[in-house]
């Protein structure tokens, strides 16, 4: 059975662009700018449909289909490719897009050098955009395309992107990353790139000044991010693209070098897979706690008990559309907390049992209401949080040790006194009173 499953998996992996399902739903709404043509993105949308998504197209200024109706999100994922739209329809506002995240809807948003309503929304995600009208420009490497069309190397090993992709073509705005731990940078700008006016390097002086001022206002270098992911606390994902052309047919079919196609197609597919909750999706299946030699949880634990905590984690397999036990988390921690963590210990995977993580520890010497807290947040992976409240009570009157070893002299003393008393009574009653012999001797004389 296991061999058949492996065979099936490998066959499917060969055709992995096909049949990869999202764990949260298949309906995708695409807000496509009227200036852009659907056919210009046929490869990307075709790949999405092959994976099994249902695509619905709409212009940003149309009123229907609404993204939120009666406070319920109508689609599982929303893609906004609207670089030239100055205003959206009434239901698409920055506030409604943000509320989609709390309704577990994923977003794929494209920015542009022009000022759109999304530019102000980006700052809510701790992304700092350059001034309007300053796309990314790079004069290296020497190539035929204009300076704003830049080949960007994809890192050879990356969590979200497939390994060893050829460079991707990019055209658009860079984003500077704020100090937010929920940001997941996916593609960084090349070190020679900078943000400037497109046609001439008029802004070069400004760049030199900024570089002299130790980097203030400097829009250059590989600290800029071109494609940035964001995972909200509700585990909904929003990805910001520096420009729509990244996913267009032109760039997908453009050659990076002689005979080598660009990596845009695979890159687009991977970014969509992460954003639409296909890859890097975990969940906690169940949580158990019990005393070491028992199997059922207790309502309360006693101080200094030895307690075992077990959790089962699954990872979503997009090819098979099912959740499989996952033992690959090496750094999960458990906290046993009452206002402050009294115990913080690692929760290692158990060898031989896939998906099971377990630890045994001694309950601290304090009584009170404690929580088992499992708070696992890593960039790119679903946030795992679990909190189980359990009271801890001091020992009952009959749970203390019955006889204390420090008191045995006193036990011996009390028992020996009783034994001596019994012996004395026996001797007293067995014998009778004998006077000393002197009176008898006097009489005999």
């Amino acid at each position, binding site marked *: 059975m296991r061999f058949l499953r492996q065979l099936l998996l490998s066959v499917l992996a060969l055709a992995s662009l096909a049949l990869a399902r999202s764990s949260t739903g298949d309906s995708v709404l695409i807000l496509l700018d009227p200036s852009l043509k659907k056919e210009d993105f046929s490869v990307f949308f075709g790949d999405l449909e092959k994976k099994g998504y249902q695509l619905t197209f709409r212009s940003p200024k149309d009123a229907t289909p609404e993204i939120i109706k009666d406070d319920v999100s109508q689609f599982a994922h929303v893609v906004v490719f609207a670089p030239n739209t100055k205003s959206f329809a009434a239901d698409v506002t920055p506030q409604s897009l943000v509320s989609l995240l709390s309704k577990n809807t994923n977003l794929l948003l494209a920015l542009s050098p022009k000022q759109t309503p999304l530019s102000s929304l980006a700052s809510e995600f701790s992304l700092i955009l350059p001034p309007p009208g300053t796309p990314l420009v790079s004069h290296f490497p020497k190539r035929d395309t204009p300076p704003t069309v830049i080949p960007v190397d994809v890192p050879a090993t990356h969590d979200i992107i497939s390994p060893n992709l050829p460079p991707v073509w990019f055209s658009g705005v860079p984003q500077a990353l704020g100090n937010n731990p929920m940001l997941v940078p996916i593609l960084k700008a090349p070190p020679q790139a900078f943000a400037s006016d497109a046609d001439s390097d008029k802004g070069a002086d400004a760049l030199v000044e900024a570089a002299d001022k130790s980097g203030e206002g400097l829009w250059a270098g590989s600290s800029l991010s071109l494609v940035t992911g964001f995972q909200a606390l509700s585990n909904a994902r929003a990805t910001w693209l520096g420009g729509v052309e990244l996913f267009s047919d032109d760039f997908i079919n453009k050659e990076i070098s002689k005979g080598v196609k660009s990596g845009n197609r695979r890159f687009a597919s991977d970014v969509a897979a992460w954003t639409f909750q296909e890859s890097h999706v975990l969940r906690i299946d169940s949580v158990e706690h019990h005393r070491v030699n028992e199997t059922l949880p207790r309502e309360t634990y006693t101080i200094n008990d030895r307690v075992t905590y077990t959790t089962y984690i699954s990872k979503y397999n997009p090819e098979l559309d099912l959740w499989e036990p996952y033992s690959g988390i090496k750094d999960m921690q458990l906290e046993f907390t009452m206002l402050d963590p009294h115990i913080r210990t690692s929760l290692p995977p158990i060898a031989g049992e896939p998906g099971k993580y377990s630890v045994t520890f001694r309950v601290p010497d304090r009584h009170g209401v404690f929580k088992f807290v499992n708070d696992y947040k890593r960039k790119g992976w679903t946030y795992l949080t679990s909190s189980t409240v359990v009271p801890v009570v001091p020992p009952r009157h009959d749970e203390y040790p019955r006889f*204390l070893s*420090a*008191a045995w*002299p*006193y*036990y*011996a*003393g*009390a028992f*020996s*006194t*009783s034994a*001596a*008393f019994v012996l*004395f*009574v026996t*001797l*007293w009653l067995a*014998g009778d*009173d*004998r*006077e*000393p012999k002197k009176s008898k001797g006097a009489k005999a004389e």
Partner: protein
Amino acid sequence: MPATKTAPPAKTAGSSQSPISSLWKAYYDNTSTRLKTIDAFLVYLMLSGIIQFLYCILVTNFPFNAFLAGFASCVGQFVLAASLRAQVNPANRKEFKEVSPERAFAEFALGSIVLHFFVYNFLG
């Protein structure tokens, strides 16, 4: 003046032995068996109490209730046995006219049983 040998000749009865052993011999010969039994009981109780007290001071008084129970057992039993000895001694017949030896013993036994009940309750 006639020379009176007033100085009596020194008693040679105990001069070859120490005062302690003569004391012991006098005690041993002149005390009835019953009283000697009580005295042995009293000595044992005293030793037991001393041992418990030394343990409490030198090692630990941790289960203090246990110390009190064990020590009170020895002391209380000692007091009861001493009062039994006082009442039963024929030399004290004048003070204890209305208490017969049997009654004294019965009171001693009853008191001891009550004492032991309290001791085991407090011993923990």
